[in-house]
């Protein structure tokens, strides 16, 4: 029945170049009415770029777009909305202090420009009941969970009468239970005639929800298949060039003493709400403890408390047996903790400073250890030592940069992360706290960074790995802790971990309440 329905979207020969990469290279893409069409590809394959073009956020360098048979030029999201296209971005585009309704009606026209909020609230309620998208129209968005925010995003598109819905990696922020609910909604929308583009890099989901799959690789179109006539193995082969998906083997390491411990640590979020509730963890030398959970359940705060940039309001952080609670970042680094922050661009690096400056930032003391004239140590920088050190790290960690003096902002995402790794790992930290170390990186960079983490473990480092990417947690960790609303729901050994169990914990069921 799906095959007979008309083509609503036809993208032909779409090309988009960014400095240094061709994100989309002559891509063709069709979507029919009422179909759920998966757009599959690894990180960096160009999926988001292609859909941003359809939604008017980027202008293609070449190519044509037809909507319902008519050739169109989409200059802005407004044009796309006019063609009844709606997009839900991977990073939500909501205004946190606004209410649900205000967010939904944002950008819409009203007679004489005067808002009719009451009326809008009623329509929001109707729509949310019709499609089973439960939200409170008057709640402020910053108070909502990530899953609820996603529902607001979908409602926002539906309120505008979207008939073509683009969802960019919608499941990456959801618990397995929420994913099931969302699939239900998508199916009922499809039945009502809505076409859906479902962006993902997860094969299982694609097999489950889609009618058709288009695979992209390195910015190029690879194939479009009917889901019912293909299988996971074929899709995997299309998605990555290599015949076999590379599997990292967890190396064995000698377990040592507990190196990093948190004892009943509590802390507040930026909004002054309790974000960590008596977190107790212990990571031993030669071990990776993975912290899984949906974003926004306190992982960021946990990393920040250990890193020394957020005050613990209660409890203790113990590093190699020494109480390091609420010490300054420099003391914590000195104590042997290496930190790879979640936010590379805004926290891990200073983009306006040069590569070499970023490399020595945490250890300025080591580069000012000589007295000059009558000035003591610690006043003047030793530039030649800095240069030598920077050159060594750049070649050791294969950072691709025009020179050590280039501003960091000229580097690509993967190289930025290598820069941070170089800075942190070269000091052989006894303890490593890595938050989202591979988020947004392409396959090559991801693999490099995961290998490095495993190397560190083998060397005997105690690693706390925080990641939203459950696959990453399963691939790398020895034990897995699951966080939910600032608490640890349970810790399980990775060997015995069952996805269903972890899913339940991610949704808030403590381990001791889960039956065998």
């Amino acid at each position, binding site marked *: 029945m799906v095959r007979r329905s008309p083509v609503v979207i036809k993208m032909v020969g779409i090309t988009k170049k960014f*400095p240094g990469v061709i994100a989309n290279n002559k891509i063709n893409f069709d979507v029919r009415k009422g179909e759920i069409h998966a757009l599959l590809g690894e990180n960096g394959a160009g999926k988001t770029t292609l859909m941003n073009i359809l939604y008017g956020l980027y202008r293609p360098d070449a190519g044509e777009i037809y909507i319902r048979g008519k050739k169109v030029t989409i200059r802005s999201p407004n044009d796309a909305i006019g063609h009844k296209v709606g997009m839900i971005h991977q990073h939500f585009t909501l205004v946190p202090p606004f209410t649900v309704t205000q967010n939904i009606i944002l950008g819409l026209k009203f007679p*004489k*420009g005067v808002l009719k909020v009451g009326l809008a609230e009623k329509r929001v309620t109707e729509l949310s009941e019709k499609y089973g998208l439960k939200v409170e129209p008057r709640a402020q968005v910053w108070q909502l969970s990530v899953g609820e925010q996603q529902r607001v995003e979908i409602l926002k598109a539906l309120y505008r009468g979207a008939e073509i819905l683009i969802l960019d990696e919608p499941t990456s922020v959801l618990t397995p239970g929420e994913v099931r609910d969302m699939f239900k909604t998508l199916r009922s929308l499809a039945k009502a005639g809505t076409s859906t583009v479902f962006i993902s890099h997860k094969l299982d989901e694609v097999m489950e929800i889609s009618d058709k799959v288009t695979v992209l690789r390195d910015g190029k179109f690879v194939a479009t298949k009917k889901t019912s006539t293909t299988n996971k193995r074929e899709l995997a082969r299309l998605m990555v060039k290599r015949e076999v998906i590379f599997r990292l083997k967890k190396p064995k390491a000698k377990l040592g003493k507990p190196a990093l411990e948190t004892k009943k640590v509590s802390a507040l979020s930026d909004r002054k709400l309790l974000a960590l509730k008596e977190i107790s963890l212990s990571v031993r030398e030669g071990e990776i403890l993975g912290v899984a959970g949906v974003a926004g359940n306190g992982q960021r705060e946990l990393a920040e408390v250990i*890193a020394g*940039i957020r005050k613990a309001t209660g409890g203790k952080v113990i590093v190699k047996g020494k109480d390091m609670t609420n010490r*300054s*970042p*420099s003391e914590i*680094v000195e104590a042997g903790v290496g*930190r790879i*922050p979640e936010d590379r661009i*805004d*926290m*891990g*690096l*200073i*983009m*306006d*400073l040069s590569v070499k*400056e970023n490399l020595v*930032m*945490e250890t*300025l003391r080591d580069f*000012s250890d000589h007295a000059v004239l009558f000035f003591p140590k*610690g*006043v*003047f*920088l030793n*530039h030649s030592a800095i240069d030598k050190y920077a050159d060594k790290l750049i070649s050791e960690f294969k950072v691709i940069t*025009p020179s050590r003096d*280039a501003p960091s*902002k*000229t580097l690509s995402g993967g190289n930025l992360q290598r820069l941070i790794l170089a800075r942190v790992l070269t000091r052989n930290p006894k303890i490593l706290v890595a938050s989202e170390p591979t988020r947004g990186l392409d396959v090559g960079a991801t693999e490099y960074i995961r290998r490095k983490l495993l190397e560190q473990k083998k060397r005997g480092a105690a690693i706390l790995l925080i990641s939203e990417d459950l696959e990453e947690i399963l691939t790398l960790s020895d034990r897995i802790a699951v966080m939910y609303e600032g608490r640890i729901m349970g810790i399980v050994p990775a060997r015995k971990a069952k996805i269903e169990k972890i899913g339940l914990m991610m949704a808030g069921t403590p381990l001791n309440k889960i039956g065998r």
Partner: protein
Amino acid sequence: MRFPLKNLSRGLKAKLPKLKVEKRPYPSLRTKILWPVLSILIALGIGAILIAAAGVNPLTGYYHLFHGALGDAHAISETLWRFTPLLLTGTAVALAFRCKFWNIGVEGQMLTGATVATFFGVSFIGTSSWLLIPLVIISGFLAGALWAVIPAILKAKFKVDEVVTTLLGNWIILYFVAYLVEGPWRNPTSLWPESPAIAGSAVFPRLVPLYRVHIGFIIAIFFAILFFIILRKTVWGFQIKATGANPRAASFMGIKVTRVLITVAILSGGIAGIAGVSELCGTHFHMKGLGFFGGTGELSWGYGYAGIFIAMLGGLNAIGVPVAAFFMAVMIQGSRAMYRATGVPSPFYYAMQGTILVCLLLGIFLTYYRIRKVKG
């Protein structure tokens, strides 16, 4: 609500469909110098319109301007005499802006420095120069530093925006000085509201007899070099740059950003205070009241505000700031000469400050972005 702009921007779009703005991640040194210089030339072009509006041939006007500032030894000495406080205030501002401490209170910090120096300079008549000059310099430094560190503390402790507090500080001290020289400190023998003269031993010696350049010039050069060394060679300078570029990341990487902020405010305000001392002991010898131009002191002549202009024109950079300060000195000195010779109103240089800054921002944009025509 209908947007009146809608039609306008549509019209513009229809006319300019084929321009594309591209980022130049790596501008060459040539580009980096070319555009700022070009933008100053453009600004001078706009200045020519202002001169023409006054009914004067711009070439004649500019001739008198540059001749009056650089034409002979006396003119150059006068220019350097103005350059002295401008270099100090420019350096003070550049240092602060480097760590994004938006100190626009240099004018007030100058006055604070001069006020305290006046107190010592008038009270300690008869003291040797070897004692009194260091005393006024150090006290002026501390006073200026105090006036700058208060906003810095308010920023660190209470998150109070320093743009407003430093600026309002100018007005507070301005009226306080007016109160002093019109009331308790008033010199009874003077027609104008001003303090009695400072001790002769507090007066800054001139570098060359009969020319007005004084040892303040040497002090200014000293601080300019200090600024250079701090930024290029020291750990502290590194921390200032990092804090200015991204305070969150800087503190993540172990830099104590509050300490950096406070110390920068102290040095910045201190240098500004010395600029005030230098004007007091090298130029005016009396503490003076309100200037004619609202918000400026008769003693500071708006040099504190000019420091903001100089710092920005100089790209907050240790080489650019002295060049910009010299340029500004030429503009001020030259505008007066142009006024005497041709009658173009001397606030010409005030108007030029803004014109140059605006053009400079355009120039900076064109340094980092390229506008290209695209086909099709």
